[in-house]
């Protein structure tokens, strides 16, 4: 197990150097995105339906500015599965009050395509993800970073600035894209770009224990 400090955007070389169990402190600008955000990314940009109002390119004109910003943010970037508690200051700016990770597995159906489409280098969440994401991490050079679930006040301390927020009125506070600048955001690599997953290993060993306790019991 090694310890790294990484600055976003992250290179493929930096990601390929990481292995499960490594601890990382992240620096730079990332975006939060969870259930509504992932569905939106797929439905609007990655597999747009043939609905009216869409241009030949598939992306509706109204969504193009956000698409361009997300492409810039997420290429070499990191998406954080998080629905924060926020506070608005008197000058209108936002502050993160509590911001731990949410359970990632709900995004499993979307994440491999999001990694491939935007060129993500990292996904932060909790609980781990499935075989599709693990494969996408191998193919495209990305990792799954695990943050400590519930450590919300501590992680909010690492969020130094809320740079922007998108889709807040449409998705609500927890589901919006919050663009944040972090310093020393603490995570552990639990799925690497070499096909290794802590979550697979623990599931296998705990299954053996379950069988011993239930069948042997």
């Amino acid at each position: 197990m090694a310890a790294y400090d990484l600055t976003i955007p992250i290179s493929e070389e930096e990601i390929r150097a990481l292995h499960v169990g490594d601890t990382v402190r992240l620096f730079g600008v990332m975006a939060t995105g969870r259930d509504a955000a992932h569905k939106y990314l797929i439905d609007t940009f990655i597999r747009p339906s043939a609905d009216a109002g869409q241009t030949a390119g598939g992306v509706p004109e109204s969504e193009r500015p956000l698409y361009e910003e997300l492409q810039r943010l997420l290429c070499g970037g990191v998406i954080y599965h998080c629905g924060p508690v926020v506070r608005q200051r008197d000058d209108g700016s936002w502050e993160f009050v509590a911001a731990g990770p949410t359970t990632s597995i709900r995004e499993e159906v979307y994440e491999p395509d999001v990694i491939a489409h935007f060129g993500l280098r990292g996904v932060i969440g909790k609980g781990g993800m499935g075989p599709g994401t693990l494969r996408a991490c191998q193919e495209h050079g990305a990792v799954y970073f695990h943050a400590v679930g519930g450590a919300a006040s501590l992680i909010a301390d690492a969020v130094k600035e809320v740079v922007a927020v998108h889709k807040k009125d449409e998705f609500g506070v927890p589901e919006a894209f919050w663009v944040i600048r972090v310093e020393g955001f603490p995570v552990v690599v639990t799925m690497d770009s070499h096909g290794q997953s802590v979550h697979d290993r623990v599931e296998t060993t705990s299954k053996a224990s379950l069988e011993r306790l239930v069948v042997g019991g």
Partner: protein
Amino acid sequence: MDGPLEEMADGRHPLEPFVELIRRASTDLPADVEAALRAAQTQEEPGSAAADTLATILENVALARANSTPICQDTGVPIFYVRIPIRPHPWAMSPRDLQSQMEAAVAEATRRAYLRPNAVDSLTGRNSGNNLGIGFPTFHFEEWEADDLQVDLLLKGGGSENVGVQYKLPHAPLKAGRDLEGVRRVVLDAVYQAQGKGCAPGVLGIAIGSDRGAGYVHAKEQLFRPLGDTNPVPELAALEERLLRECNELGIGPMGFGGKTTVFGVKVGAYHRLPACYFVSIAYMCWACRRARMTVRDGEVGYE
């Protein structure tokens, strides 16, 4: 005890005491829960992911308490259990009036960032913005013989709520029959299925019997029991002790990273059931077991 209730003196309805109850639940982890997490940390291998995770958790608990900020950003669905004296009580409010005050307090606590806005319209997907909605938050009222008004609050996040499960015995795949051995088997399966996704290490509230709906209500009531208490029913006490030991033998560990602490509390209640039904309802509570109690007695408001 936290002082006289000034609102009563001038006849206004009390709001601040409920906001304070919510603030405490969200930001101040109960002492028994914190002590259990501290004890768990000493059990784990120094330098392991499990030990580091518990250290981070404890650091976060202290920070949240000091700054009065939410321990976890998922402040969940606020679940209120209210016990009202039969005899005239200080606030002399009906359940409906109490509920409207608690709803106002929830909206105010959301405004003050003690709670995240969590009430989402299931049809439109819109977040109400103030934690109020249809059937949201959740209230349970009962009358009781005591002279004090007691309000218990549990803040239960979505990650842990998603791994809660209800089994119907017999359960063939686990060879679980309609007895306590069957209960033991399905509980171990539930904890295995949850892995780290409910934010392990967790506390289990379990209801044996009852109907499908009330089973979960009773399971969550079990989460209010102090971690160190002993079940008054000897066979349930023995089951709790065995399940605590065996759940930890699964080796799932804090956050599912592997380790010795997977659960740090198992609380089981047995309720009457229909002849045809034998439900085991399991409420999984994350390590941030955010419960708080407010008691109003002789015009004084106290918290624990």
